[in-house]
C-alpha cells in the first residue's frame, strides 16, 4: 500500500513538473524535436547550416560561395588583430590562448557578475583590461577577430550551461525565452513565428531559416550587408524588419536571447564564420 501511494505521488509530481513549469532541459528536447518533425529529411547535425539545411536550390549557390568564401578576408584581418600587441605589450592571445579557439565556451553565465558573457563581450573586456578601447559591437574589427577565433574553434560542441545553483541564470534564460516567443513590432511577429512555427515558409521572396542552428555560425558574411556582422547585428536587423526598435547590441535583452537560442542548439557544433545571403 505504501509503495502504491508513493509511486502515485511520484507520478503526480512528474506530471506537475512537465505541465506547469518545464525546465530548460525539457524545453530544449521539445524544441529540437519540433524541428526534427517539421524537417524529417534534414539530418540533425545539418541544422547548423541554417536555411541551407532545408533548401537544396539555395544550398548549391551557398556551396559555390563557400568554395572561396568572402569571410576568409575577415579571418586574415582577424588573425592580424588577434596577435597585434596592445600598448602594454600584451595581445588578445594573452586572454584567449595562442589561437583563440574558445568559441565553445561562450555564451556562459558569469556567477560573480550575474550576467551572460558572450564571446564579443569577452574580447572587448580583454581589450579594456589592457587599457585598449573596445571595438564596436556589430561589425568591423569585432567581427574580424571573432571570425578568426570561431574559425579556429570549428567543430567545438555547443554545450551552453545553465547553472542550477544560481537562480539568476535560469531567470536570464527565461527572459531570452520570453523574448523569442513574444510578438513585437507593428508587423506583430515573434522570432518563433517566422523561425519556428512557419520556418521554411516564404515571406515575400525569402524563406525563413529554422531557429534550431541559428547561433552556430557567427560571425557571418551576409551578401545583403556585403560585410561581416555579429549575431546581435542580425537580431537588430530582424527587429527593424518587423518594425520594432532594436535593442542595444550586447545589452541584457540580446545577450539573454543569445543565451536561450544557443542553449536550444546544444549538441550541434560551432561552425562559424559562415556566408549567408
Amino acid at each position, binding site marked *: 500500500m505504501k509503495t502504491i501511494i508513493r509511486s502515485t505521488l511520484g507520478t503526480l509530481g512528474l506530471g506537475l513538473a*512537465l505541465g506547469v513549469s*518545464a525546465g530548460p532541459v525539457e*524545453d530544449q528536447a*521539445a*524544441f529540437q*524535436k*519540433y524541428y526534427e518533425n517539421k524537417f524529417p529529411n534534414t539530418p540533425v547535425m545539418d541544422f547548423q547550416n541554417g536555411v541551407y539545411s532545408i533548401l537544396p536550390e539555395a544550398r548549391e549557390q551557398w556551396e559555390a560561395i563557400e568554395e572561396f568564401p568572402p569571410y576568409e578576408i575577415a579571418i586574415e584581418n582577424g588573425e592580424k588583430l588577434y596577435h597585434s600587441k596592445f600598448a602594454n605589450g600584451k595581445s588578445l592571445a594573452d586572454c584567449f590562448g595562442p589561437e583563440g579557439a574558445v568559441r565553445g565556451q561562450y555564451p556562459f553565465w558569469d556567477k560573480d557578475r550575474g550576467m551572460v558573457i558572450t564571446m564579443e563581450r569577452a574580447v572587448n573586456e580583454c581589450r579594456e583590461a589592457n587599457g585598449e578601447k573596445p571595438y564596436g559591437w556589430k561589425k568591423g574589427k569585432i567581427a574580424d577577430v571573432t571570425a578568426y577565433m570561431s574559425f579556429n574553434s570549428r567543430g567545438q560542441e555547443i554545450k551552453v550551461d545553465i547553472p542550477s545553483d544560481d537562480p539568476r541564470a535560469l531567470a536570464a534564460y527565461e527572459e531570452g*525565452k*520570453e523574448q523569442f*516567443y*513574444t*510578438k*513585437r*513590432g*507593428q508587423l*506583430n511577429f*515573434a522570432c*518563433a*513565428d517566422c523561425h*519556428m*512555427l512557419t520556418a521554411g515558409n516564404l515571406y515575400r521572396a525569402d524563406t525563413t531559416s529554422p531557429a534550431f542552428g541559428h547561433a552556430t555560425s557567427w560571425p557571418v558574411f551576409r551578401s545583403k550587408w556585403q560585410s561581416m556582422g555579429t549575431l546581435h547585428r542580425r537580431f537588430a536587423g530582424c527587429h*527593424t524588419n518587423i*518594425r*520594432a*526598435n532594436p*535593442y542595444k547590441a550586447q545589452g541584457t*535583452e540580446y545577450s539573454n536571447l543569445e543565451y536561450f537560442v544557443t542553449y536550444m542548439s546544444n549538441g550541434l557544433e560551432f561552425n562559424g564564420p559562415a556566408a549567408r545571403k
Partner: protein
Amino acid sequence: MFKGLTVGLVAVAMSMGASAGASNVSSSKLIKEATAAYKQVSKDTGYQWTVSVKALKAAQAAFDKGKYTDAEAHARAAMDLIEATRLQAKIEADTWKMRVPK
C-alpha cells in the same frame, strides 16, 4: 487576440484623415502628449515600434514648418501606434507561452 490590434491599426488609418482647426497651440499640445505617451510605453513595455518614432518625427517636422494640420495628423497617428504597442504588450504578456512547444 488579433482584433484589438486590428482595431488599433484601423484607428491609425482613420485618424490620418480627420483634423480641423489645428493651431500652433493645439498641435504643440498633441505632440507633447504623444511624446509623453511614447516615453511611458517605452518604460512599461521595454520596447517600441519603429513606425511610432517615425510618426513622432514627422509630426515635429510638420510643426516646425508651421503645417499644424499635418502635425496633428501625425501626432494622432503616433498616439494610436503607441497605444497599439501597449495593447500588443498586454496581449503578449501571457500569450507567448502558448507558442512554446511541449
